[in-house]
């Protein structure tokens, strides 16, 4: 078995930023067959809407992880789309030059907002995926800044030339799976919440193994738990290889 974890935060709320901790984090993954990890950055350390300087700080930390362990960590460029076109494009260009392979969007705005246009244009220009934080807003009434699965699916439909990763399968829930159904350029990552029974099998049934990628949300979650909740899905060995490794490898162009 081998896996790529497409959703991790080795530095989380200002903790974990040292060579020793980066190594420990990677070693924990390697011990459980996680061959590579995508570091999405310490995305909430400055709150929901970091300014330009703070965004650069977060991405510089991710870059340092990539330099410490280039064979292990893959960086995604964290953005605040609300900052506007110029800062967004400048930061994407800077991060791409540093070797980042994707864009991470948290809760600065809703995925339907107009400010997403330059972000998606940059993703298309550099041919990199966009991982959008997503959670069902049925109970969490914060849709102004958070994205419901309906919003992320809408984003993917509006930009069919960009690969969108809808984060948090468990947080998206059964309704979220149905929102993602039939959107070719959309995959859902398996992270988010506790290891709830039933949801992965439902996603496999409706989306198929080509549209699901393994993600853990470490360190909020634990690798053993997130791997086992994925391995417990009703999949053929070929489908399991896609979910754990192949789909991420394709999306990240490894």
């Amino acid at each position: 078995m081998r896996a790529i974890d497409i959703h991790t935060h080795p530095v989380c709320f200002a903790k974990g930023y040292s060579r020793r901790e980066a190594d420990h984090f990677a070693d924990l993954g390697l011990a459980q067959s996680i061959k590579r990890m995508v570091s999405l950055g310490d995305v909430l350390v400055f709150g929901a809407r970091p300014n330009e300087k703070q965004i650069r700080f977060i991405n510089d930390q991710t870059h340092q992880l990539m330099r410490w362990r280039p064979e292990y960590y893959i960086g995604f460029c964290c953005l605040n789309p609300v900052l506007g076109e110029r800062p967004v494009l400048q930061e994407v260009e800077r991060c791409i030059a540093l070797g980042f392979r994707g864009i991470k969007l948290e809760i600065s705005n809703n995925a339907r907002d107009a400010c997403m246009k330059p972000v998606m244009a940059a993703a298309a220009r550099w041919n990199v995926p966009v991982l959008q934080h997503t959670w069902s807003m049925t109970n969490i009434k914060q849709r102004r800044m958070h994205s419901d699965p309906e919003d992320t699916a809408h984003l993917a439909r509006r930009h069919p030339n960009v690969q969108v990763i809808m984060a948090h399968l468990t947080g998206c829930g059964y309704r979220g799976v149905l929102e993602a159904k039939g959107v070719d350029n959309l995959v859902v990552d398996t992270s988010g919440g506790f290891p709830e029974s039933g949801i992965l099998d439902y996603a496999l049934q409706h989306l198929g193994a080509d549209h699901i990628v393994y993600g853990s949300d470490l360190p909020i979650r634990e690798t053993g738990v997130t791997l086992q909740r994925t391995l417990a899905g009703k999949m053929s060995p070929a489908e399991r290889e896609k979910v754990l490794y192949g789909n991420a490898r394709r999306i990240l162009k490894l």
Partner: protein
Amino acid sequence: MLIDTHVHLGRWPFTFAPDYTAKQLAAHLRAHGISHALVSPLDAVLAPDPLPANRALFSAVRRLPALLPIPTVNPALAHWHEQLDFAATGPLRTIKLYPNFHNYRLDSHRLSAFFTEVQKRKLKLIISVRIEDDRHRYFALRMKDVPTKQIAAFLKLYPKLHPLVVGLGLPNVRELAKLKCENFSADTSFMEWLESISTLVREFPARRILFGSHAPFFITEASLAKLKTAQLSAANRAAICSGNAKRFFGL
């Protein structure tokens, strides 16, 4: 030996979690190396009276010694004496409470006679503070998890009761520690962080941690993974896997 202290039997209408029969549940747990499990009836959580579901559970597990039935009691109902009478017939003389589903506060003075009687009868107590992630709860079930401050108030009100509180997360345990609450044990089902159990053992006495899978809500393999990958001493591992449950429930 592995004893699972947090298992339900029955169907939860808001998810597609497996709906095992008692026999299937016993086989499922056995296949995962779980030798005994404390099982409560899910039907009792939403029913107007838990007694019919408790009776059905006792009947369903009668020939399955690996499943130890834990009846649900709703102390807000007038016939709680009758519920306790039935609970006392169970093999573990243990009751389980769901304060948020049954609409009462643990620290309410109207329940003092009930908890006095629980102590008098020497019944053991399990308190469920949540059975699902409230962010994903069915939208029409407008309730909150049992607040940690309420648990703390309850623990201070009844210092001689030492309940097993199931469904606590690491932040809840930290909050209870800050509030100087020590007369409780906790299960592992909702404890998750990087290196969950090792982290928990560093902050919370291992003798008060009991393994709980929360099957069938949670994937059993995933709940077990926390234990399997944890860096623990042999003594702590044995205590969490079975020793603490044996001592707590007199198994």
